């Protein structure tokens, strides 16, 4: 395919400072994603999926993390080298992240509306006192409209009502949908979905995944989808990366990877999977 290369991770290596010394956690990971593509990353727990994703947005605190090598090119720019200022501008507007646990990823003491509005208004600003592009009043109105639109798209009933609610008033599935809407509020180019909704029910989870996929395709957003569920990976992504102990051990077209795994590790994962036939 000749689509434009959106993000390219080359030989990324990350260590963590711990009480037992520095532990290399991400080892020479390389990945890429093109415009409009959906890829999945699978691997057992602790294999480094989340750390890789979070490092794209520079959300890991340094220390304890140390970048020991490699680069993360977004539209040709190395995200590891840009200023704090620039990365903040990118966060939420160009690259967004969906968090895995709907119970903890929402601030418990602000309404959904306030939280969404803040993102819409202040995303990328240096401070709340910085000059806004339009008057705050206008922006508030826009934020509201956009929030309602997104919540509706996520098949949430009564989006207006939800804006006035606090996280604890919503069910897990609703919260997860809200989190997705938050990540999309500024229509990012790249969406990093870190196992969204895995703590939820199977039925809820599968419907969320479907809605997410539909929305991403609709808005022409590229997505890296992390999961440890091979089935989900296969259903969602065109290409798949398999990670183990901080390394990418296999990559390729999803069908190919799952139906004809080349690596021992991938095979063992497949074998461990309970099958219904």
């Amino acid at each position, binding site marked *: 395919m000749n689509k434009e290369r959106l993000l390219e991770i080359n030989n990324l290596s990350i260590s963590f400072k711990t009480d037992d010394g520095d532990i290399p956690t991400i080892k020479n990971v390389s990945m890429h994603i093109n415009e409009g593509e959906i890829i999945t990353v699978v691997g057992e727990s602790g294999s480094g999926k989340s750390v890789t994703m979070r490092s794209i947005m520079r959300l890991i605190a340094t220390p304890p993390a140390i970048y020991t090598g490699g680069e993360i090119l977004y539209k040709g720019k190395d995200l590891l080298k840009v200023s704090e200022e620039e990365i903040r501008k990118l966060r939420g507007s160009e690259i967004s992240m969906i968090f895995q646990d709907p119970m903890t990823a929402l601030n418990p003491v602000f309404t959904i509306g306030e939280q969404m509005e803040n993102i819409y208004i202040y995303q990328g600003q240096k401070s709340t006192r910085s000059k806004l592009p339009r008057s705050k009043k206008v922006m508030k109105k826009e934020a509201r409209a956009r929030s309602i639109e997104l919540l509706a798209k996520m098949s949430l009933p009564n989006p207006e009502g939800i804006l006035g609610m606090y996280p604890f008033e919503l069910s*897990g599935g609703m919260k997860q949908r809200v989190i997705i809407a938050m990540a999309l509020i500024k229509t990012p180019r790249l969406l990093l979905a870190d196992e969204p909704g895995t703590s939820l*029910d199977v039925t809820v989870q599968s419907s969320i995944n479907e809605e997410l996929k539909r929305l991403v395709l609709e808005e022409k957003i590229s997505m890296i989808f992390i999961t440890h569920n*091979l089935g989900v990976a296969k259903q969602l992504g065109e290409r798949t990366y398999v990670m183990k102990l901080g390394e990418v051990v296999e990559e390729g077209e999803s069908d190919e990877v799952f*139906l004809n795994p080349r690596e021992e590790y991938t095979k063992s994962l497949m074998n461990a*999977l*309970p099958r*219904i036939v």
Partner: protein
Amino acid sequence: MNDYIIEFNNVKKYFQLSHGGLGKNKKIVKAVDDVSFKVKRGVTFAVIGESGSGKSTMAKMIMKFEDVTEGKILVDGEDISAMKDKDNLKAYRRKVQIVHQDPTSSLNPRKTIKEIIEEPLIVHKIGDAKERLERVKELIQVVDLPLNYMDRYPHMLSGGQKQRVGIARAIALNSKLIVLDEPTSALDVSVQSKVIDLLKKIQKEFNLTYVFITHDLALVKNFADYVIIMQRGNLVEEGTTEELFNNPKQQYTRKLLKAIPVIGDDEQAFLDRIQLDDHTISM
């Protein structure tokens, strides 16, 4: 001896929310609503259902952590709601054990593995210190853990290993009935399959009965003999595993089946045969 180790006869469990106050609109949650079933000895009896459907509540009632609101539960032919005093209860708890979902939170972080496995023996005053130590060693071997793990603390073990400790503790008293409340949902697929294998092995060895609570239908297919499906406190469907997968009667059951994420084309094909709107499965 009774064929059935557990019998649920029209069991109900209601929770009252917002108690106190000034008496108006007391909200009642029907966690388990008029459920009846029987569990044969030596089988793996699966309970399936979405979150909040009452699965754990049933487990708690079997364990006598919760009392029954209405109806009767017979275990080994004995009405367990009649057991009131402490000694009876203690004796009952030698018979029935539970393995919890989250292996980390179900082990006391400040005790060694040996202490954890030994605790039921101490509580029930079984053997002297030496005998108990022997028994602990034996149990550790049964669950395939290295013996030198005895003096470790839970946090030094992996999830799968912790779950094995939980299982060792559950079988320490030679209980015949073990309730498994989502015992593998916290584990990785690869670890999960090992734990399931272990459970199968032990079941054969000691002729145990499992009540297996889960929301993973694929796992049920591989592990359970008999299945009941719960929805909002009601039992909506039951049958042998084969029956259920091949001929799901309820719309809800079919929806659950459809939601299984699968890899193989054969599996996909299997799921594709299930129609959500009518009862037939096209061949």
